[in-house]
């Protein structure tokens, strides 16, 4: 876009909201905007939600077990989203569980992304037997049903939050490794790598300053594709009872508890389920949008 065009488009009077959307490249991207707002809201709740949490998430209200949400018959404002089988406030548990789910999802994804990308770059740099071994590990990881692997580790090694985060983080490293390896291989064939090498850059600087920025966009997109998977994996493990253990709670764990009352009190499972569903959907939408944004040649 030339400067004249930019001036012309910004010359049009638009609301401050429209101008803001335009500046961030969100004009017309309603789905992305909604997804961004939703994800920001979820992050806000995950970080600051404890300030608005009506009850401690473990507090029992034995007189009001399985109370429906406020908009259903028999609901009350005391428990806006109802209570579970022990009379615990669903909203409070949701806020608390969200916090842990987001933490596990984000940290797990970052662990997987860094580990996988690093091993991929190492494989592409050293080639030879290093590459053979690493790619064999990737193939093993791919052919292993990960959920069984994760269950085995959690059952044998024991279960605490750190181990859980590492286990869900390991899931997906092979995707980053393959992606990073193939992209580094093709980047190394590019003339610009030879050109900067002829300018006297060392290998490390070439990776850091030239190759990594070129492949980072794709890796970030891969991470946004993976993030919902990690959150779902945590939910699955917690649902199966091998993930987050009481008294801690996560979205998957609430879902797992709610499973037993699906007919009687569907709200226990439906609310965390909806939060997970929209969260993963939003992240996927944002990832798609980011893929286009992060490629400067598409501007």
């Amino acid at each position: 876009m030339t400067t004249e065009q930019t001036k012309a488009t910004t010359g049009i009077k638009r609301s401050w909201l429209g101008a803001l959307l335009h500046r961030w490249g969100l004009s017309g991207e309603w789905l992305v905007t909604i997804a961004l707002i939703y994800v920001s809201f979820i992050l806000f709740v995950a970080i600051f939600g404890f300030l608005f949490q009506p009850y401690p998430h473990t507090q029992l209200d034995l007189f009001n077990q399985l109370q429906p949400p406020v908009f259903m018959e028999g609901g009350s404002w005391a428990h806006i989203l109802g209570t579970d089988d022990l009379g615990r406030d669903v909203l409070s548990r949701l806020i608390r569980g969200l916090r842990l789910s987001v933490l596990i999802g984000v940290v797990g994804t970052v662990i997987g992304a860094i580990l996988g990308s690093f091993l991929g770059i190492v494989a592409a740099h050293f080639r030879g037997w290093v590459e053979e071994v690493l790619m064999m590990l990737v193939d093993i990881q791919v052919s292993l049903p990960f959920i069984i692997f994760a269950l085995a580790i959690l059952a044998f090694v024991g279960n605490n939050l750190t181990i859980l985060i590492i286990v869900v983080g390991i899931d997906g490293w092979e995707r980053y490794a393959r992606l990073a390896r193939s992209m580094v291989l093709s980047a190394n064939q590019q003339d610009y790598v030879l050109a900067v090498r002829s300018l006297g850059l060392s290998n490390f600087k070439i990776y850091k300053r030239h190759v990594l920025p070129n492949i980072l966009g794709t890796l970030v997109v891969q991470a946004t594709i993976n993030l919902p998977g990690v959150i779902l994996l945590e939910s699955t493990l917690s649902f199966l009872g091998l993930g987050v253990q009481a008294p801690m709670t996560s979205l998957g764990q609430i879902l797992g508890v709610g499973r037993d009352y699906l007919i009687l009190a569907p709200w226990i499972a439906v609310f965390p389920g909806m939060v997970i569903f929209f969260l993963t959907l939003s992240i996927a939408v944002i990832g798609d949008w980011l893929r286009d944004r992060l490629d400067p040649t598409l501007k």
Partner: protein
Amino acid sequence: MNEIENIQPDATGSAEETPLLEVRGLSVVFDTPEGSVKVVDNVDLKVSAGRTLGLVGESGSGKSVTCLAALRLLAERGRVTSGEVLFEGKDLLKASEGEMEALRGCKIAMIFQDPMVSLNPVRTIGWQITESLHLHKNLSKSAAKSRTLELLDLVGIPEPKTRYGEYPHQFSGGMSQRAMIAMAIACEPKLLIADEPTTALDVTIQAQILELLSDLKKDLGMALILITHDLGVIAEAADDVAVMYAGRIVEEAPVLDLFDNPLHHYTKGLLNSLPRVDRKVERLSAIAGAAPPPHEFVEGCRFEPRCGHCNDNCTGVRPEFQQVSATRRVACIHPVTTP
């Protein structure tokens, strides 16, 4: 070929001074699954400060590999088996990787064939030029930026301030090549190696880039190695020429002598295959056959299978260089005799 007239005939006297870069007996082997092939065989080159050496030859004759090997930039498969590369008296093949990194881009810089892919697509032009400044010179941020703007101006990029923040895809081929040149000369190198700098550009831009290179060479006192397969480019820009065929140098001469009086049959064939404006040619003559791939190199004179002037003496024996004059030599047993 009236461009030849533009070149000052100062060919004599270059041989005595110590050359800036001297390549002696360089051989490069590529390891392939089918075995090793020698793509560069015992190559000698010399280039002195302030002069342009044209390295001419067909694709695959080992021109680029020779220069990449001299800068130790070969891919893993390529191996230097013998020879030395003396730059200011120091053997680059024995230097440590750290010394080479300090040297590349600072004293010896290189520009490449396709400028559109030789720039990092995700960094701005300004960033990339500034990088090579930061690498070799201790400049503050603002000093580096103003130096970059100067460089952009020097290589003839209009509106340097706007262009500074633009990405390579916003540049045309000629502009990208100018930016590449700006990067290469950022630290005022003593030697610039230009690997087919004009091949990917159209003809009008070619002339501009060659002119730019000659001007810069004069202004900065650089030596220039110009790798090309285009004799027109050689005529326009080179002082001395080395003709390569199948991994060997076959003839070395000052540019005027080479065009007036080629001694090797290959050089002669190349010149005959050029269209001429100064005389009437019915039909261009081509050299029969094709340049051999490295695994089909023959013993003895490698041009022998395509040469119409060979006899039994030519097979099996590598032709030694014959020193024709102080600045000319040719590797042929029966060089072209002047008619």
